[in-house]
């Protein structure tokens, strides 16, 4: 029988479902680190999973694009070099991911599949099942409503859960999601129209309770894409950026990388892909010593051009920001996404926000 795409699972049954999943797959979920903060990490027991949590500062992109990713081992055997691709691990489930982060994972998956497909990333994406927990109570600094990336999703999830109190509303988005629910199918009932109504009410309430943070991409995009942001504006904003690259590291959609080999030992070495950042001055340094982006303002301009220009929007079909608010949290200066977008709209810079 064709199963409905919307189901319900009792709160008291969720851990049993998770136990079934853990039996078959590796599960990564927001969990409490030994130091006490929240992080995405592999879990071993359903009790490790957090249900009421602040979205971790490090996004789950590391499970699609590892910060240091071995691509191949080079081995010299009998005088000849052997290139051995690094094999991928087993199926993994990302559980209780926030809507913004799931949108970002979709953005990255599409980016790596476009034009020349990166088969390593494609395979890893294919082996990931993403279970999102819709944000019935939006986070404080998020502006996902401005980027079409939350607080509830219409796409980009395999399973979307909505907390209805005594139960979870379960939306199955893909075959991968169907397979995950299928691991413990008896725990799920078909959703009734009343369940659907409670889920929809939760989404409306979430939208109404949105935080103070907004980000008007439309008008900023128009200015960026038509060269109507003065170089002086970038220059003055860049004085408020510490050039640390923190925003790009916690950004769930940033994906600049470099490739590097471990130093050869006994004819062996490992080629790795490493996160890099377009905000570092050496990012564009050529071997001749020439660097086309020496001015700090030019590097900032690059970041926002990639995130919010019509040229990239046309290519990607999405803005390069999901509105998670992590750059607001992490920036030691004042040049986070909403602040810079506001400055671009107004054409002036007053030093940015005063951080709480």
């Amino acid at each position, binding site marked *: 029988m064709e199963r409905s795409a919307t189901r319900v699972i009792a709160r008291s049954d969720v851990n049993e479902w998770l136990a079934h999943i853990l039996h078959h797959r590796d599960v990564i979920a927001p969990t409490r680190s030994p130091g006490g903060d929240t992080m995405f990490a592999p879990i071993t027991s359903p009790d490790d999973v957090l249900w009421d949590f602040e979205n971790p500062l490090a996004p789950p992109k590391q499970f699609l694009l590892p910060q240091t990713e071995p691509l191949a081992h080079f081995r010299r055997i009998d005088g000849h070099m052997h290139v051995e691709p690094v094999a991928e691990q087993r199926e993994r489930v990302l559980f209780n991911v926030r809507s913004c982060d799931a949108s970002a994972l979709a953005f990255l998956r599409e980016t790596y599949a476009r034009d020349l497909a990166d088969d390593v990333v494609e395979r890893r994406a294919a082996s990931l099942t993403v279970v999102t927990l819709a944000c019935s109570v939006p986070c404080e600094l998020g502006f996902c409503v401005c980027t079409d990336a939350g607080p509830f999703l219409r796409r980009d999830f395999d399973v979307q859960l909505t907390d209805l109190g005594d139960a979870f509303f379960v939306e199955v988005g893909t075959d991968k999601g169907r397979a995950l629910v299928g691991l413990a199918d008896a725990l799920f009932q078909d959703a009734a129209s009343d369940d659907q109504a409670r889920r929809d009410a939760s989404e409306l309430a979430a939208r109404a309770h949105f935080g103070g943070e907004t980000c008007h991409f439309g008008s900023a995009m128009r200015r960026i894409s038509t060269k109507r942001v003065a170089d002086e504006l970038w220059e003055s904003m860049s004085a408020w950026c510490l050039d640390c690259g923190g925003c790009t590291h916690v950004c769930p959609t940033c994906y600049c990388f470099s490739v590097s*080999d471990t*130093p050869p030992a006994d004819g062996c070495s490992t080629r790795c892909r490493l996160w890099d950042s377009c905000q570092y001055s050496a*990012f*564009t340094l*050529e*071997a001749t010593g020439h660097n086309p982006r020496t001015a700090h303002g030019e590097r900032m301009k690059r970041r926002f*051009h990639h995130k919010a220009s019509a040229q990239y929007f046309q*290519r990607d079909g999405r803005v390069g920001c999901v509105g998670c608010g992590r750059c607001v949290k992490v920036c030691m200066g004042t040049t986070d996404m909403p602040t810079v977008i506001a400055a671009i709209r107004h054409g002036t810079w007053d030093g940015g926000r005063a951080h709480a």
Partner: protein
Amino acid sequence: MPNLLLPSVATILTQRDETPDVRTYALRFRDPDERAGFAFTPGQFLELSVFGFGEAPFCLASSPTRGPDVEVTVRRCGRLTDALHTLGPGDEVGLRGPCGNGFDVDAARGKDLVFVAGGIGLPPLRSLIWNVFDRRREFGRVTILYGARTPSDLVYKDELRDWERQADVTVRVTVDRTGPGWDGTVGMVPVLFDHVELNAATSLAYVCGPPIMIKFVVQDLLKRGFAAEHVISTLERMMQCGVGKCNHCCVGHRYLCRDGPVFNVREITEMWE
């Protein structure tokens, strides 16, 4: 490509010193199928790995008309190129590619061709020059203008003499500073324009070299009536992946490793970020 970032093993067949710090290597894919299946256009480049030292982009300096072995001409200037210069015939390197768009060779058919190169800018043009000589009847007059800092910095010295002996080919060479045994022209590359007749209406010009040279040569060509679309150059940026993923080579939303490195001057002028 089985894996976008995975290099294939190739063997160094020969090496030839061009200048004290520039060397040309002939390379052969170790896997016969890969060797047979390797197809490229002049102007494209390879990502070359020295195992344990990373990889870097180098222009294909040989022509697809001359078989499946390839040549690269490499200036020694850093970690990877230092390591490469310690290797020789029989040693193995990694190759990945071809990358980039390459020259539109068909668009050059029936045209007079002007090649202007500075220093290590000659290798990508050499690929096209060989290609043109191997299909000589399809193209018109060929003019090759080449300059280097000193006589000892000129690459492909023997070939320059061979090229000059071909029918309907003019070769002019200059050096910034003269040196022992040099009795040719002295001066920057643009001085060579006074030594040749060019017909802007029937020609395409290809310009490769350091950015400052490209700038002055392009100005000269435009002044001599060349349309911006008919002046073609290659752009260089720091590159890592060579396949449009890592973002190192972007100019605005253009990826020099995918959309380039070959652009005409009109496209270059319209590029911004």
